[in-house]
């Protein structure tokens, strides 16, 4: 017999006994029964109180509440769906953005004791500097390593197969403390020029091993070509290891010394002026960053003497390595993306948080409306003996259940959304988005916050229920309900936050539009870029190879012209120099800088950049002939003060040049920088002969050049099988320069629209609720002669107050928040742009008007006789 049955039986026995006694006193059966029941009181309540004694009562109650909650949800699937969906979107947005921020900024590297890692701050370092530190690594630290992040071409020939790779010094794996999942890692013995005992060796990532080698165990010992140079695979990195760079998935590591083998005479190993290496150290257990920096600075003078360049500009040599070296903590690795994305992502996280808040406010409104509808049900249960606490707990359980479902949906949305967003950061960006305790914590916090925001209000509302009165009303309404006030506050907050998010969205959208409408100086839509690498061809034959390649590309049907350059505009690469103009006063050091590019004849024609005066480079502009240059208009404005450029002379680091032409402005590095001063040199006049790789730009006759890719690939393949190349559309490259702005614009617009929709729903909800409550009053007004327009005015008046208060509050909030939007995130628009503020306010007023007008119109159609009959 269960405890419940036991109690039931006991109480029943008691009452039966009472009845029996009453009958013995001579009452009729019915009277006896009535008397017994009356004297006993409420048996259900007694039973409840006995059951309350059980130590498991909380669990019984919880399962009961959950069961009841699920039943309510099933009965109102629409309500549950709206709540779960809006919570899911809100939580999902937060979790997705947080998991990116987490992976980029917060997560420690998956290595041994990451907290003891530190990097050498401020830029990159030369190999001689690294070698000087390497000598001292064990005295100063528990080891150190240097690396250079690269894109490696793994193809044997032809079209490139690019992966993230790195030149890494011998002890990298040892210092990081990772173990190979197969084979061995390279060591200091392998990191010697000319190759170690096993020759040139490579370590590959686990992903590449699975993808390219099907996870076969005999991969160790196999050949792999890295930048067309054969290496031997000696090991596979463990799962989850992506190298020291966060944001990259480095899958091929080769010893630093082998760089000479890959780049040949272009090697950077002995370059005293080539800053290309990152340096990371493992601090000794007793060291902190300050102590480690101190130790490094103590030997800095010695290092400086050791690596001081013997050639170069005297002022550069004087300044060389004089700034104190400093280490910064690197438990989270190094990332080129971090500085670019940390701020935008933080802003987006705040925005997503506000969207979640608005969603919660909406749900709170819905729940409050429902709570009033359920008042009758609740009061009946209270009259039957349920305690207020019990009812409040019941309501809270329902909210928690909805929030839990929302959190699950949110996690699913984030699981899908986060990789999508990472893809927007750049096609090669890779981040470890796995759910860790932080992401889990944020999800839980989101759900808990939601419960507090929308679950607590109705639960507290229970404490104000008065069973006697509510039962008397039989569900009819009383005016002056305090919860209406609460709902108005929520709606005003929603409107205000929506204004703020819309202002933000508009600012970021205008930034993106301004950037995309910056005149580039050329039309990217018709251009295709081939990065051509002729490294495997002997230097003497390279000129001919380049020529043949260009001719082959031009012969492809649909291609109008083709030209070479060292730098491809908007590729992110740059080459700059200091300019002096003979006869003019030298500009201050920082203002002498100009971009440089070296181009072949017809490069301007291919890009569609007009030669304003003078001439283009021609076949005669080669070595042995006068050194010539073409400058753009921005250059002429800056260095010639707008005077005639053609015929002038310019001195740059690369030599002295005669200006033969003035070109129209074109963007060099990014649309944000606009048209910057640029000097173009003749490719044929570069002293060292043709470099091992060039950018070949192709112009299509009409239409998108991507369709011509296949033709270009086979044409280039036919020229020489030793040539390696990769193709991409110029428009892709242009878009990539705005990845950050695009991401911020897309997300803030999406969030702003979501906020707007939610606010509209909230406004609609609260208005139609109040119209329903005021049916009687409106009916009377109409019976007394108010016309439809008057009723609409009456309702819209209220809506107007809510929207007006929200818009004003929102404008103030936006004004305050604008200080957090740094100007580097905006372009072509001010953070406090009045037009944007006005537009956001106008959008909300219109949307609010529509959301209020629908219930207002319904109110105006109330039939007074029906309403009056109801009451």
């Amino acid at each position, binding site marked *: 017999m269960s405890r419940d049955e036991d109690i039931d039986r006991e109480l029943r026995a008691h009452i039966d*006994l009472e009845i029996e006694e009453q009958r013995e006193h001579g009452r009729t059966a019915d009277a006896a029964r009535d008397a017994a029941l009356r004297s006993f009181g409420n048996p259900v309540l*007694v039973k409840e109180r006995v059951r309350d004694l059980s130590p498991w009562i909380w669990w019984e109650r919880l399962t009961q509440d959950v069961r009841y909650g699920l039943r309510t949800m099933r009965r109102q699937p629409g309500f549950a769906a709206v709540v779960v969906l809006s919570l899911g979107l809100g939580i999902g947005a937060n979790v997705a953005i947080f998991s990116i921020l987490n992976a980029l900024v917060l997560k420690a590297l998956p290595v041994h004791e990451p907290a003891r890692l530190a990097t050498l701050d401020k830029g990159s370092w030369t190999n001689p500097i690294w070698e000087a530190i390497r000598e001292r690594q064990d005295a100063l630290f528990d080891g150190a390593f240097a690396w250079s992040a690269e894109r490696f071409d793994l193809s044997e020939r032809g079209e490139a197969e690019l992966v993230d790779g790195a030149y890494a010094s011998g002890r990298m794996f040892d210092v990081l403390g990772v173990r190979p999942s197969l084979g061995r890692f390279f060591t200091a013995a392998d990191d010697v020029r000319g190759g170690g005992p096993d020759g040139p060796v490579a370590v590959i990532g686990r992903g590449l091993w699975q993808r390219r080698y099907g996870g076969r165990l005999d991969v160790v010992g196999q050949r792999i070509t890295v930048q067309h140079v054969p290496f031997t695979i000696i090991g596979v990195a463990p799962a989850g290891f992506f190298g020291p760079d966060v944001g990259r998935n480095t899958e091929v590591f080769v010893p630093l010394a082998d760089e000479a083998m890959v780049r040949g005479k272009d090697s950077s190993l002995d370059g005293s002026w080539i800053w290309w290496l990152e340096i990371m150290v493992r601090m000794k257990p007793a060291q902190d960053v300050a102590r480690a920096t101190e130790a490094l600075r103590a030997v800095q003078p010695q290092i400086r003497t050791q690596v001081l360049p013997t050639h170069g500009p005297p002022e550069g040599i004087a300044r060389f390595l004089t700034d104190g070296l400093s280490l910064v903590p690197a438990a989270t690795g190094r990332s080129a993306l971090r500085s670019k994305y940390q701020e935008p992502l933080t802003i987006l996280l705040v925005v997503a948080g506000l969207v979640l808040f608005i969603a919660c406010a909406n749900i709170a409104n819905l729940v409050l409306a429902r709570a009033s509808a359920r008042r009758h049900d609740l009061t009946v249960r209270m009259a039957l003996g349920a305690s207020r606490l019990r009812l409040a707990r019941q309501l809270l359980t329902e909210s928690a259940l909805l929030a839990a479902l929302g959190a699950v949906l949110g996690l699913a949305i984030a699981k899908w959304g986060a990789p999508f967003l990472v893809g927007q950061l750049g096609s090669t960006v890779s981040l470890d988005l796995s759910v860790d305790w932080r992401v889990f914590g944020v999800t839980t916090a989101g759900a808990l916050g939601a419960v507090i925001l929308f679950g607590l209000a109705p639960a507290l509302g229970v404490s104000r229920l008065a069973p006697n009165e509510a039962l008397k009303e039989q569900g009819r309404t009383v005016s002056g309900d305090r919860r209406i006030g609460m709902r108005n506050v929520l709606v005003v907050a929603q409107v205000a936050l929506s204004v703020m998010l819309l202002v933000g969205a508009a600012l970021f959208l205008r930034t993106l539009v301004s950037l995309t409408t910056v005149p580039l100086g050329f039309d990217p839509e018709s251009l295709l870029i081939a990065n051509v690498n002729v490294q495997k061809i002997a230097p003497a034959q390279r000129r001919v190879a380049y020529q043949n390649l260009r001719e082959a590309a031009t012969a492809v049907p649909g291609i109008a012209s083709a030209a070479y350059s060292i730098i491809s505009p908007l590729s992110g690469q740059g080459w700059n120099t200091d300019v002096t103009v003979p006869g003019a006063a030298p500009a201050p050091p920082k203002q002498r800088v100009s971009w440089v590019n070296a181009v072949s004849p017809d490069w301007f024609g291919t890009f569609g950049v007009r030669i304003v005066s003078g001439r283009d480079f021609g076949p005669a502009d080669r070595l042995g002939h006068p050194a010539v240059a073409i400058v753009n208009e921005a250059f002429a404005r800056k260095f010639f003060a707008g005077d005639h450029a053609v015929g002038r002379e310019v001195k740059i680091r690369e030599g002295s040049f005669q200006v033969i032409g003035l070109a129209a402005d074109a963007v060099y590095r990014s649309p944000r920088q606009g048209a910057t001063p640029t000097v173009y040199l003749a490719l044929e006049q570069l002293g060292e002969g043709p470099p091992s790789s060039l950018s070949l730009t192709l112009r299509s006759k009409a239409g998108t050049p991507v369709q011509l890719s296949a033709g270009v690939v086979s044409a280039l393949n036919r020229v020489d099988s030793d040539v390696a190349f990769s193709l991409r559309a110029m428009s892709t490259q242009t878009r990539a320069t705005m990845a950050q702005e695009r991401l911020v614009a897309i997300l803030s617009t999406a969030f702003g629209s979501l906020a707007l929709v939610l606010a509209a729903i909230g406004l609609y909800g609260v208005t139609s609720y109040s119209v329903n409550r005021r049916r009687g009053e409106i009916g009377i007004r109409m019976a007394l002669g108010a016309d439809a327009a008057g009723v609409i005015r009456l309702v819209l008046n209220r809506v107007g107050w809510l929207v007006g208060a929200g818009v004003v509050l929102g404008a103030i909030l936006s004004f305050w928040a604008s200080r957090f939007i740094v100007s580097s995130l905006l372009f072509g628009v001010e953070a406090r742009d009045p037009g944007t503020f006005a537009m956001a306010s106008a959008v909300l007023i219109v949307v609010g008007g529509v959301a209020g007008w629908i219930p207002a119109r319904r109110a105006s159609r109330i039939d007074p006789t029906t309403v009056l009959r109801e009451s």
Partner: protein
Amino acid sequence: MRTRPTDRTELLQGTLDMLILRTLLFGPAHGRAIAKHIQQTTQDVLQVEHGSLYPALHRLERKGWLSAKWEVKERNRELKYYRLTAAGRKQLAREESNWKRLAQAIARVLSPPARDEV
């Protein structure tokens, strides 16, 4: 709300336990008999609410001061009889002495010894 005659007093918190234990000192009894006994002995001054009685019985049983058993004893009816356990006896002794001390203390306040009557 049920109205209650004014000459009936609500039980002090905790005293119900003592009264139940005390009642069972005379032998096993079922819930209704216990309530009746308390009511009759106090000449209806103390009204035992069923809403308090049964929770109290179950609580005391849980604490091990009472044991309960379904038995057929009177009127040919199976009823749940409670009886005092050894632990319950000890508890009763404790509560009685506590109660006496409390009653004396209160009595001293209400009727100071100067008047010399308790």
